[in-house]
């Protein structure tokens, strides 16, 4: 299972909130990224959390700086609306792009980007909010706006575009540190054969054990527990080795 720290970026700072709201500054993105790289992160995700609102992604320079001395895969999420946006990020060192909001205006963008950059570079990002038992709605604009689209329906609908991975974030669980929305990931795993990155809710090691029991996810992405030094990447990796034996 890959461990992927996520850096939510606003105004050149790493920030972190609860349920995507109440954002607080955590620190400098370059320093934090370098630290997670040195601690053994498998990949990094940079998420521009105001990009969709302002209609642009501002992470180009940040990524360009990062890839000078960070030699692991880097995913950029947030505000990718056109092939031109995507191209700029890819030329400046991104390995993968995660797309959400714009797909609700222009579904074809998924297919277009997959064709240009290959499945392995394009991730379908979904922000899921629980509506009722076994039912989740997809949100856009960094978890701010409703789409009236059922998450499972959306996964099925998007499967025609051959995304390489799914980045699924539970809005309800994000920043709470109370465990993953296990039912959400279980349901998604039953409905797709695409590798899944589970995001939102990590608080302690047993949360991973619980998640693995029900859902065959390929990676977890976490931020708060690492930012606030509740755990190290190494501790997670050692734990995974132990439970896999």
């Amino acid at each position, binding site marked *: 299972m*890959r461990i992927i720290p996520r850096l939510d970026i606003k105004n050149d700072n790493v920030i972190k909130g609860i349920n995507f709201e109440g954002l607080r500054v955590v620190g400098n993105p370059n320093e934090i990224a370098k630290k997670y790289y040195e601690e053994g992160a*498998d990949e990094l995700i940079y998420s521009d959390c105001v990009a969709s609102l302002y209609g642009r992604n501002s992470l180009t320079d940040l990524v360009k700086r990062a890839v000078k*001395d960070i030699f692991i895969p880097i995913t950029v999420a947030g505000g990718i609306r056109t092939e031109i946006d995507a191209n700029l990020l890819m030329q400046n*060192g*991104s390995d993968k792009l995660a797309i959400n909001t714009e797909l609700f205006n222009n579904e074809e963008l998924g297919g277009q980007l997959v064709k240009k950059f290959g*499945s*392995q570079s394009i991730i379908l990002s979904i922000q899921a909010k629980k509506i009722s038992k076994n039912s989740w709605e997809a949100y856009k604009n960094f978890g701010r706006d409703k789409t009236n689209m059922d998450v499972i329906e959306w996964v099925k609908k998007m499967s025609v575009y051959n995304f390489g*991975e799914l980045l699924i974030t539970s809005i309800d669980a994000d920043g709470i540190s109370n465990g993953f929305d296990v039912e959400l990931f279980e349901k998604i795993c039953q409905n797709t054969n695409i590798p899944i990155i589970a995001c939102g809710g990590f608080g302690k090691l047993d949360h991973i054990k619980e998640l693995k029991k029900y859902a065959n996810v390929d*990676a977890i992405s976490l931020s708060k527990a690492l930012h606030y030094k509740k755990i190290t990447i190494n501790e997670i990796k050692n734990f995974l080795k132990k439970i896999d034996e």
Partner: protein
Amino acid sequence: MSKKITIIDYGVGNILSIKNAISYQGLKSVVTNDNKIIENSTHIILPGVGAYPLAMKKLKNLKLIDSLKIAKHNGTFILGICLGMQLLFSSSDEFESTEGLNLIEGNIAKLDKFKKNLNIKLPNIGWRNLKNNQKDLKINILNNIPNNSKYYFIHSHALIKCKKNVKIVNSSYQNIEFPAVINLNNIYGCQFHPEKSRTQGLQIIENFLNL
């Protein structure tokens, strides 16, 4: 003779990271699709992500196929990375059967064709070991690297068949073994991304540039 390191620019792949991996060793590289520069290189890196047919079309349109054949003939060291490695071979079944550069005879197929009745998650994404059971077939770009090092893979296709004279070091994914590093004379290939595989990946690039 001083080194002339060229990264082939044909509009696919994360070229910046390869360039950075080379600068990290204090070496300079040129990112180009200029035939003359390519043909006069001492070391060529052929990157690549994305789809095989599109990549071949781009190489063809830029008239790079012959340049790469000339470079091979001149004894230039060539390293193909990920899709770039697959392009070195004769053909691939990705989408449609497509001819490759044919610098080495061999065929690329989707990983789920490697065994019968496979239902596996693709792409194969993640950090994997190399099998070190082929001691007699040591590939020199793997020198000076600890045995159980892991490398970052992200691919759905791999080399399924080639001539016996090609040196191969395998990796595996869900019980399928597939070639991760290959070498025949001056031609090298990595199915994983050395430029995304930490120090061990950088060591491979350094070893290659030291050839």
